[in-house]
């Protein structure tokens, strides 16, 4: 056996760590698309996967434009888009961006304004796009920078059968206090069933989304108009205490690790009587193989001081400013966000899979209404009554309902969510959690106050 001086083996070890770190730093440059091809970068959600299946057969056949898709999970997609768009490398012509990114992407001058194209394009029918959607994809300069592919708000879901058994009535537009009372009464209605499921998993897109909508309607806000952090102010503190108390008393077990997926599990398994979350959850609850299909009732997001409190989120198509083929890119966007495409999905994959939540005409379509009967109207109402510019009782420095529209929010929101999640787990008091969070928020606010 030879003697091995294993010094060389150190290299792969070091490399493994470095390689893992840098996996996200690759993909600089690269050729853009020319002629009749466009490159699209998108998130790997089911609606996008459907689109990928339909593109060659329909879009390419009609227009002769070939589409190269790059599909990644949400975190990686955000990262890759900011890489490519920041350098204006032009590697991707079109990308899926959410209404969280649009305002500051536009401020960075990374996106192509779409107003002129939309105005010229009668067939696309921009007026059909729901107003809050249009508003949330419009930047501070008043120009439109993206077209929605599908959208969602939030609402309250509850077990109609359990409520009937227990002689409980759910109001059409419940207040949070009513919901807390109902949760107490429905708690234990069936063996192992808790009153309500609310997210407690740390993350700006997990716990922080529903909690921020609760804070809005309790009269709280992250920042005042002049960027003073408000996390320890009465509105925000009261809302957080209410949320934490409710989930600790009548919420699911293991709440500090429960996100969207876990609550969906709890509801389908009959472990929760109510759930406040995304309107898109209804599709899974009403799926053919769901054990609670037809047993769920849907009402507007609970309120306290505001008229509505549902959030607003959309995955939308943005065109990179540096694209070499803006016309072809627009052709793709107008096709993917069109009425015609929705009908195509309905006929091919079933009406429940339509990328809904963006057009008024979707909710007027009899086929869609039949498939999504119980929740379609409540969803439409939730989205149309959302007010991204004015979601609370005071003026805000940025647009956004369940988030503050600044790049720092993903980090800040996640760190604050970790503190509040610890309060849900009983590791610290809500006051302690908010005190730490306020410090974090102040640091971010200061940067903006100086600008």
């Amino acid at each position, binding site marked *: *056996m*030879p*003697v*091995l*001086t*294993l*010094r060389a*083996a*150190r*290299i*792969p*070890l*070091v*490399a*493994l*760590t*470095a*390689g893992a*770190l*840098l996996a*996200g*730093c*690759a993909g600089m440059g690269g050729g853009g698309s020319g002629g009749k091809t466009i490159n699209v970068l998108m998130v790997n959600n089911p609606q996008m996967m459907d689109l990928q299946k339909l593109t060659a057969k329909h879009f390419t056949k009609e227009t002769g434009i070939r589409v190269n898709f790059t599909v990644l999970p949400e975190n*990686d997609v*955000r*990262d890759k888009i*900011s*890489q490519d768009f*920041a350098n204006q490398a032009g590697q991707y012509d079109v990308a899926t961006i959410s209404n969280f990114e649009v305002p*500051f992407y536009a401020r*960075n001058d990374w996106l192509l304004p779409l107003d002129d194209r939309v105005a010229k394009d009668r067939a696309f029918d921009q007026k059909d796009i729901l107003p809050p959607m249009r508003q949330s994809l419009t930047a501070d300069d008043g120009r439109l920078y993206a077209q929605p592919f599908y959208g969602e708000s939030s609402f309250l879901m509850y077990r109609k059968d359990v409520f009937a058994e227990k002689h409980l009535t759910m109001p059409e537009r419940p207040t949070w206090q009513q919901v807390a009372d109902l949760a107490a009464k429905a708690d234990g209605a069936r063996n*192992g069933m808790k009153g309500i499921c609310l997210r407690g*998993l*740390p*993350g*700006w897109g*997990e716990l922080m989304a529903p909690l921020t909508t609760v804070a809005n309607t309790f009269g709280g806000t992250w920042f005042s108009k002049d960027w003073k952090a408000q996390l320890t102010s009465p509105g925000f503190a009261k809302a957080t205490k209410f949320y934490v108390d409710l989930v600790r008393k009548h919420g699911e*077990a*293991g*709440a*500090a*690790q429960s*996100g969207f997926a876990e609550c969906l*599990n709890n509801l389908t*398994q009959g*472990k929760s009587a109510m759930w406040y979350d995304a309107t898109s959850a209804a599709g899974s609850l009403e799926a053919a193989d769901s054990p609670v299909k037809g047993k769920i009732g849907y009402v507007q997001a609970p309120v306290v001081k505001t008229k509505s409190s549902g959030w607003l989120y959309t995955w939308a198509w943005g065109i990179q400013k540096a694209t070499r083929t803006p016309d072809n890119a627009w052709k793709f966007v107008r096709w993917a966000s069109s009425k015609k495409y929705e009908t195509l999905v309905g006929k091919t994959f079933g009406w429940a899979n339509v990328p809904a939540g963006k057009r008024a005409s979707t909710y007027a379509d009899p086929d869609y209404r039949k498939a999504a009967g119980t929740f379609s109207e409540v969803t439409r109402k939730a989205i149309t009554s959302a007010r991204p510019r004015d979601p609370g009782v005071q003026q805000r420095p940025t647009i956004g309902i369940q988030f503050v529209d600044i*790049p*720092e929010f*993903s*980090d800040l929101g*996640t*760190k604050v*969510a*970790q503190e509040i*999640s*610890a309060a*849900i*787990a*009983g*590791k610290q008091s809500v006051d302690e959690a908010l005190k730490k969070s306020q410090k974090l928020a102040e640091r971010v606010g200061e940067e903006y106050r100086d600008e």
Partner: protein
Amino acid sequence: MSNPTTAAPVRGPRPPAAATATRRSPEIPRNRAREWATRAPLMPALIFLIVVTQLPFAATLVISFFDWNAFRPERREFTGLDNYRTVASDEGLRESILTTVLLTATVVIVSVVLGLLLALLLDRRFRGRGLVRTMLIAPFLLVPVASALLWKHALYNPEYGLFNGVLTWLGGPQPDWISDMPLLAVEMSLVWQWTPFMMLILLAGLQSRPLDMIEAARLDGAGNWQIFRYLTLPHLRRYLELGTLLGSIYIVQNFDAVFTLTRGGLDTANLPYTIYETFYNAHEYGLASAAGVLVVIGTIVIATFALRVVSSLFREEVSRA
């Protein structure tokens, strides 16, 4: 670490060039040519290795000296060691270093002890030994993220998990496993994954024991415990060191368990998870790179020890041959 065996004469083929380059001999040119003839075919592989491994690391190093937020590319600037200062002074990052040390040490020590017990059991002959061994190795073959999901949903979940199901059946309490003992929950799932790895290494060690020595000890009237204490354990020392070091290197880098079970909440965020958050959530490329470089340096320190142990093992094998 002492190396009693380094003095042993080395036989076998000539050691590689690195060892001989220092030796001055009159026929250097011819030797050089011959050495290069042996090296040449390896060059493409070496160059490839450097391109795919060292260049990215060099890039990480460079990036770590910049203040670079992905959403504010226009403000990218060279800041020297600022990022390293931030990493050293940031409370969250400091806590995550402590968490990493605690998590790694606990998992490694517990896995080694359990692995040793299992290896001693498997070292005996009994019917169905092969099957038991295969079953014991299974957890190590699972994809880490799948294992973490299994623990989160199938075992820990207080609503429909196996643990609380069994407790209900026994009429016991219903703990909320991950919330009540977050770090312990992560550690348990990792111990389950890494015990088989330790067991395999130690089993290999056990099976290479010189049995004649044990026979002799038995004839001299040594009991089981004495044999274990004075013969087996000293023989296993190297293997224990190897398992500990390799385990440490891998577990320091563990990301899946923390990400899946707790999302870094409840003070369970370890360094890899914190780096991930810094990179993907805060979009602070400079800071994430600086933290990454520090992890790499830490890993190199551990790895150096590990490789020393491994090479001393090899030398021992050679001297025995």
